[in-house]
């Protein structure tokens, strides 16, 4: 019990407890900008996952050789290299997708999630745990972006991944516009806060209940065996 998380916990923390977008409010720019459609959201998050895993792995491997004064600059160069790889690959293979994401692929360099994980996690942990962390954070980011993209696409055009899901739907044009991005994210954040506060409340209730029960149990067992046992 040194505060180390298990493999599963290391991945799962990125999904809810430390979800990069919804809980840490990192990487807001791509979250808002590319989620006009669900496909864009998924493409963007796949690119981010790739960069996140590669840079986390690389940084955790070289972390002991980088002097701490220049570490941020070194991290940025490593991240920028992987972003260039993604950018050129997408331009060559998925020209259409690359066009619709535009400057936001090279802008992954300044996505605070990646630099944030490099500084907060990969620079202090080994390669294996850093990969797990990157996968968790990446999946958390993907879920958020896909949810945002899906909501905006359904309400904004009645489609999901390009297929009509709401025939005869009067499109809410505002959802595709920038204002809709802000609004969707605000509502999702509100919902997440509401759920997590209810959970905390419930957890606190059960904690109080449990401690009351254990205290009563301890008390009764102590009375039964005499206080000398001590291993209760």
């Amino acid at each position, binding site marked *: 019990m040194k505060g180390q998380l298990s493999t599963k916990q290391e991945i799962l923390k990125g999904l809810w407890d430390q979800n990069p977008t919804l809980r840490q*409010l*990192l990487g*807001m*720019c*791509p979250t*808002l*900008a590319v989620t006009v459609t669900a496909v864009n959201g998924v493409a963007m998050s796949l690119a981010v996952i790739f960069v996140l895993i590669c840079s986390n792995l690389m940084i955790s491997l070289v972390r002991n050789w980088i002097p701490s004064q220049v570490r*941020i*600059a070194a991290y*940025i*160069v490593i991240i*920028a*290299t992987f*972003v*260039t790889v993604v*950018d*050129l690959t997408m331009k060559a293979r998925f020209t259409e997708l690359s066009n619709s994401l*535009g*400057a936001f692929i*090279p*802008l992954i*360099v*300044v*996505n*605070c999630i990646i*630099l944030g994980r490099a500084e907060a996690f990969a620079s202090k942990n080994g390669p294996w745990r850093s990969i797990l962390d990157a996968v968790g954070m990446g999946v958390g980011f993907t879920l958020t972006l896909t949810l945002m993209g899906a909501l905006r696409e359904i309400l904004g055009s009645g489609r999901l991944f390009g297929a009509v899901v709401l025939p005869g739907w009067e499109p809410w044009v*505002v959802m595709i*516009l*920038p*204002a*809709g*991005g*802000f*609004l969707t*994210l*605000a509502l999702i*954040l*509100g*919902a997440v*806060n*509401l759920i997590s*506060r209810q959970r905390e409340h419930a957890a606190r209730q059960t904690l109080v209940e449990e401690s009351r029960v254990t205290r009563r149990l301890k008390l009764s067992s102590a009375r039964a065996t005499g206080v000398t046992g001590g291993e209760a």
Partner: protein
Amino acid sequence: MDLLLIFLGAALVNNFVLSYFLGICPFIGVSSRLSSAFSMGMATTFVLVMTALVTWLVQAYILAPLGLEYLQTVAFILIVAALVQFVEMVIKKMSPALYRALGIYLPLITTNCAILGLALFIQLRGYGFLQSLVFGLGAGAGFTLALCLMAGIREELELAEVPDSLKGAGITLMVAATMAMAFMGFAGMI
């Protein structure tokens, strides 16, 4: 006339914050006080203009002649980081008072995506030297405007009753949505 259109386009019609979503982090993080929002806006504007000039020169005279365009992203982010560092040192030397006023916000400008975004947009749209300068100025003006407006609204919001779940980022984003809608009104200008 062309330059005026670029300036207005970057500052109002396609405001960097409210329509390209660039620089959202400082927009949400720094914009709770009007004075710090204005300082941040000014510092960012300065870095934006410098970045526009330097990246344009580097692209035109170093990367393009040598056929190194694929290093664009790496080169640009290094230029931005170096510029921010340089600006920080100059301000510290020239005006310690301003340096203290800006404090932590200065180094944070490096990771403001508006800066790198500006450099990339200039290349995507093939702007010339003077156009890049005006584009940088317009982007900075738009960023400062959005930041100050948001700070003013947030100072008032402190007195308003906001549902608990929406406090902080939630209500800020809602305000941003309203502002984005208002800025859409400029769309007919050009």
